[in-house]
């Protein structure tokens, strides 16, 4: 044990020593305890080098203990279940966990890229912009090399086997952060009867109290936490979410929380839910996310062994890990004195507390000195020695001038430098919510100012550093939140704590003077993850950058996965110092979601695989599947594409299906068509305004083809409509246009013409539609048994009748989308499959052939019927399509005025025509560009919208939009083919087959 965990303290901490956990780091077997994070276990095992820096490849160690950690970025797990780019400080240790450092190839101990460090001075701010952008054509080579060596985590190599889910939640009060302030806010709100959600990113509630020796209400903090959590658990409408980061504060008090679900003991990947995304609509929000400690900028401050003082305390107190044996504590405020006291109590030697303030600390200073810890007030650590681990600190007297040259006069051996540059409240969510920030000159930090949404900040996140203040403010925030909701705040007492130690105020120390000239500041790191140094910020300022947002982009300050949690304020302060402006004038950058990195898996939730998007199926779908039909996706629908027989490919099957329709009988499932019932006293008037043809002239029982233009005159949708009563019509739309057409009609009815009494009801799902097409379609219906006469005179083309077919009530339509004699059978979807089976049975003697969408497309193209959305694209008018015959002269309709716009009258508008390949065999690709002549450069004059091989005609056919096309029939133009000479094509009528339309009238 001692060998495996040399830095583990013999007792203390919140780890469970009875549950040792084995894990590996870069292939090395390691050991920790339940309750450890990966970071604390690594540190217990004596691992101090966890990665290489991004640009300069400098060795890096663990700096922090939470969301601020910039260096310990790990790849967790292997294969498909791997999770890249996780912070070791945020990963709960579990048995069998496999971790790899993501930065530094082939390993963190030896890194080829470290040679970059030698050229560090050349790799200043904007280096990539300046160097690799020239010559431009070389960029792709540079980019490849840079990306390869940059190496954050690797994307997993297969579909994630784990489960992720979403959870929508609503609450009266959401409390973000479960430290002393958050716990008090949640307790007060919940006891007042509010629905409360309390979320904290740690696996235990308590926040800073977990690493504190404070007592509350006379009991140790841990006991107090346990009692509060137990009380909250007992309240019905209180949801407790540990290991859950509130990472987004969006509009209308909508917040997003990523919950890392505990892996069950012995649980395998994929067994349970790995992460859950909570989508919370909160009426009030209490932000109590605490504060983050800032590092200090001195020479080589990035060496492994230089850590945040608070993180050192956390490792000692919470995880019983000693991060070093001999420490120097460097601070500009009182809080780090606690770290020195902690270290000393844990058996480490504290070589000195180096305090930049001439007066040192208040009461804590006295306590430290009583423990025999030397305090060097008015001094700074100006540099540290050591490469892969700190070996000593150089200490100098502090003159108060950041830009002077100071040689260190004292050298102390040490393996740990604990630093504190003051504290920054976590104002991210406040800022995401649109709240303003205000600089506080005495606390030296940005504090949340006016809120724009319903939230309030409390505790350290609001600049309250003492425990007593945090508890009181939390209580107050909880009470204020419920009061705003009209609830009476429950009488909760502020817990009693020992009076706060008298503290001396923090003093600004944004940059420590260096031993030599100012260029040594190239080793003074501000943003560890992006290797942004004081020198980079100076360079940016020298090159004219004044705005912090620009400086950020030029230097990459704050861009990493830690989003500048450590470096932003220091960077801005240095910039302000250089520019000679006060910090608030330099401003702060905007915080945007997410506060911490969020996995793709949790964003996707359950919407993966076959739940990625709804799949709509018809009532006959199971028959199509059983028949082995490949499916085509049309919108959300799955439609049979073709029905292969005996190993046929697409072309063979489609040719057979088309010929069957032309020669005998084909049936297809057309149920996906949109269907709308329109009725009311004003239905004729309404439809006259929507459609272009004379709706009023239709007699009851008649069908008509209609098109719907937008107000801009462009074709929006088309379909057959039938007049089923004096005041009733049955409208059909395209498969994809169903919802849009209904919305369009309702919009006009509700907003512009409410005086029109018309009701629209969607019947798309209620009715299934079976199209029976071909010369034998009438015989089929007769064979099925139909209660009405079906001959040409009794039931002519373009009429509709209710009937009973094979004993089932249906509505028959004598309409045709293939140009053949055809009937569309509309039937209650509950009966559709049965009817389809009967058709297959009764049609056997005609060799009834089910056909799919592809044959349907070919058949309609042979007849020159458009598919809205394929042959049109929102820029095509009915006139362009040759549909002048459909445009009523006698009435107005939506879009009519626009057809008179000069642009719609241009003679060279693209018009819809047919095309024949001159070689008689080339099937053009849809989308092929058309050119008039073959000179170079060739002017484009149109494009192919539909193209097929027509088995019935024995040659390819195509439909195209060609400039002035209708006047150019007979003319030969060219299709531009990839890798081939342009192919001559002849412009013809778009109707290739039975141009007089005789076949459908039989």
């Amino acid at each position, binding site marked *: 044990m001692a060998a495996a965990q040399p830095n583990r303290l013999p007792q203390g901490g919140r780890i469970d020593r009875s549950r040792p956990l084995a894990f590996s780091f870069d292939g090395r077997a390691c050991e920790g305890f339940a309750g450890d994070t990966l970071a604390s276990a690594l540190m217990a095992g004596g691992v101090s080098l966890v990665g290489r820096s991004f640009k300069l490849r400098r060795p890096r160690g663990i700096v922090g203990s939470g969301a601020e950690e910039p260096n310990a970025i790990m790849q967790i797990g292997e294969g498909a279940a791997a999770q890249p780019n996780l912070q070791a400080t945020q990963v709960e240790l579990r048995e069998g966990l496999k971790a790899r450092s993501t930065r530094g190839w082939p390993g963190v101990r030896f890194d080829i890229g470290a040679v970059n460090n030698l050229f560090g001075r050349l790799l200043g701010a904007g280096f990539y912009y300046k160097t690799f952008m020239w010559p431009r054509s070389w960029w792709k080579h540079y980019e490849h090399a840079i990306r390869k060596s940059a190496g954050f985590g690797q994307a997993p190599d297969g579909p994630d086997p784990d*489960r992720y*889910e*979403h*959870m*929508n*939640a*609503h*609450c009266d009060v959401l409390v973000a952060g479960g430290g002393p302030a958050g716990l008090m806010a949640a307790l007060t709100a919940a006891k007042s009867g509010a*629905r409360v*959600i309390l979320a904290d990113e740690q696996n235990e509630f308590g926040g800073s109290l977990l690493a504190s020796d404070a007592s509350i209400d006379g009991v140790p903090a841990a006991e107090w936490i346990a009692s509060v959590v137990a009380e909250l658990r007992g309240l019905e*409408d209180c*949801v*407790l*979410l540990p290991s859950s980061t509130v990472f987004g504060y969006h509009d209308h008090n909508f917040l997003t929380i990523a919950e890392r679900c505990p892996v069950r003991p012995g649980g395998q990947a994929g067994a*349970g*839910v790995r992460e859950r995304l*909570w*989508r919370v*609509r909160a009426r009030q929000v209490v932000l109590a996310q605490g504060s983050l400690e800032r590092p200090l900028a001195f020479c080589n401050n990035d060496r492994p062994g230089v850590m945040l003082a608070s993180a050192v305390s956390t490792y000692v107190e919470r995880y019983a890990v000693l991060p070093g044996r001999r420490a120097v504590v460097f601070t500009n405020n009182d809080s780090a004195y606690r770290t020195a006291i902690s270290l000393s109590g844990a058996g480490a030697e504290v070589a000195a507390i180096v305090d930049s303030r001439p007066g040192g600390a208040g009461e804590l200073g006295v306590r430290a000195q009583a423990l025999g810890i030397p305090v060097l007030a008015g001094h700074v650590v100006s540099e540290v020695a050591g490469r892969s681990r700190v070996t000593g600190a150089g200490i100098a007297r502090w003159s108060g001038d950041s830009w002077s040259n100071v040689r260190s006069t004292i050298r102390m051996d040490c393996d740990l430098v604990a630093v504190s540059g003051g504290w920054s409240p976590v104002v991210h969510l406040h800022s995401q919510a649109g709240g303003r920030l205000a600089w506080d000159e005495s606390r030296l930090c940005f504090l949340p100012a006016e809120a724009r949404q319903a939230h309030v900040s409390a505790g350290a996140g609001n600049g309250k550093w003492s425990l007593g203040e945090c508890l009181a403010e939390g209580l107050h925030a909880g009470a204020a939140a419920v009061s705003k909701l009209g609830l009476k705040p429950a009488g909760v007492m502020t817990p009693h704590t020992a009076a706060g130690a008298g503290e001396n105020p923090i003093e600004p120390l944004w940059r420590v003077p260096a031993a030599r000239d100012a260029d040594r500041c190239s080793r003074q790191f501000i943003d560890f993850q992006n290797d942004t140094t004081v020198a980079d910020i100076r360079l940016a300022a020298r090159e004219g950058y004044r705005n912090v947002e620009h400086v950020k982009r030029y230097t990459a300050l704050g861009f990493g996965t830690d989003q500048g949690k450590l470096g932003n304020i220091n960077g801005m302060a240095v910039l302000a110092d250089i520019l000679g402006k006060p910090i608030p004038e330099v401003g702060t950058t905007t915080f945007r979601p997410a506060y911490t990195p969020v996995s793709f898996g949790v964003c996707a*939730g*359950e*919407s993966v695989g*076959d*739940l990625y*998007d*709804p*799949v*709509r*199926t*018809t*009532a006959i779908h199971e028959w199509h599947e059983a028949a082995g039909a490949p499916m085509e996706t049309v919108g959300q*629908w799955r439609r049979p594409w073709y029905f292969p027989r005996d190993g046929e490919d697409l072309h063979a099957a489609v040719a057979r299906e088309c010929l069957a329709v032309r020669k005998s009988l084909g049936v297809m499932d057309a149920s*996906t068509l949109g269907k709308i*019932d329109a*009725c*009311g*006293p004003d239905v004729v008037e309404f439809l006259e305004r929507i459609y272009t043809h004379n709706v009023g002239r239709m007699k009851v029982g008649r069908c008509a083809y209609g098109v719907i233009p937008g107000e801009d005159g462009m074709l929006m949708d088309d379909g057959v409509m039938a007049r089923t009563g004096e005041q009733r019509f049955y409208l059909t739309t395209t498969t994809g246009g169903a919802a849009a057409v209904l919305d369009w009609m309702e919009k006009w009815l509700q907003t512009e013409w409410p005086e029109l*009494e018309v*009701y629209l*009801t969607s*019947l*798309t*799902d*209620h*009715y*299934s539609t079976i199209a029976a097409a071909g010369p034998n379609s009438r015989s089929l219906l007769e064979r099925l048994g139909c209660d009405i006469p079906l001959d040409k005179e009794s039931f002519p083309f373009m009429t509709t009748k209710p009937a009973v077919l094979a004993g089932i009530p249906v509505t028959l339509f004598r309409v045709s989308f293939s140009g053949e004699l055809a009937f569309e059978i509309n039937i*209650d*979807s*509950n*009966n*559709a499959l049965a009817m389809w089976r009967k058709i297959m049975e009764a049609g056997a003697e005609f060799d009834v052939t089910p056909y799919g969408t592809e044959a349907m497309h070919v058949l309609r193209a042979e007849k020159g019927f458009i598919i809205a959305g394929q042959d049109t694209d929102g820029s095509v008018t009915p006139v362009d399509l040759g549909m002048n015959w459909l445009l009523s002269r006698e009435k107005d309709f939506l879009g009519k005025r626009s057809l008179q716009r000069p642009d719609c009258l241009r003679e060279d508008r693209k018009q819809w025509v047919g095309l024949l390949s001159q070689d008689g065999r080339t099937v053009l690709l849809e989308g092929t560009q058309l050119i008039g002549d073959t000179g170079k450069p060739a002017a484009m004059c149109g494009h192919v919208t539909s193209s097929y091989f027509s088995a019935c005609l024995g040659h390819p056919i195509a439909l195209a939009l060609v400039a002035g096309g209708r006047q150019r029939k007979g003319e030969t133009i060219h299709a531009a083919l990839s890798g081939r000479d342009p192919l001559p094509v002849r412009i013809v009528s778009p109707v290739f087959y039975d141009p007089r339309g005789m076949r459908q009238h039989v």
Partner: protein
Amino acid sequence: MSDNGLPLSGVAISVRSGRGFLNLRLNPHHGQAVETAERVLGQPIPQAANTFTNGGHEVYWLGPDEWLIANVAERAAALGSELAEALGGFHAAVNDVSGGNVELLVRGAEARAVLAKGCALDLHPREFAPGQCAQTGLGRAAVLLAAVDPSSYAIVVRRSFSDYVHRWLENAARPHRARFSAP
């Protein structure tokens, strides 16, 4: 699965078969028309948004002039004709939509938690009490969701989406074991 009605880890999902549906449109301010429809139906038509009445049928409010009437399938056609005939003199629309809808039941102590994974409505019993219904989203589909009693919900979904919704519900219910903190 689970047509046997056995709870699946605290949730049971079943298809309610043999249901018939009618879609009714009429002007709610036209007292005579409303009275006529109520007389044929034998129960009140809910005027309050997001509620349904329960008598011989369930009459769900869909919009200010639109209702869905659910009953047994065999009665739908006859009732539809009867309604249409009675309302013949008014501006009204009656459509049999029995083939277009599927009704699912989600029951059990964890029904609410399962639905909350894909429904943005606040399903807390204080906010969405028995007798209330809402057209809303579940997963990525539109549904009519109704609170039947404190631990059962009816979902009416368009037929073409019903497979998706059924699979969505099964998937959402799968990880539900003994413990789960409901929102």
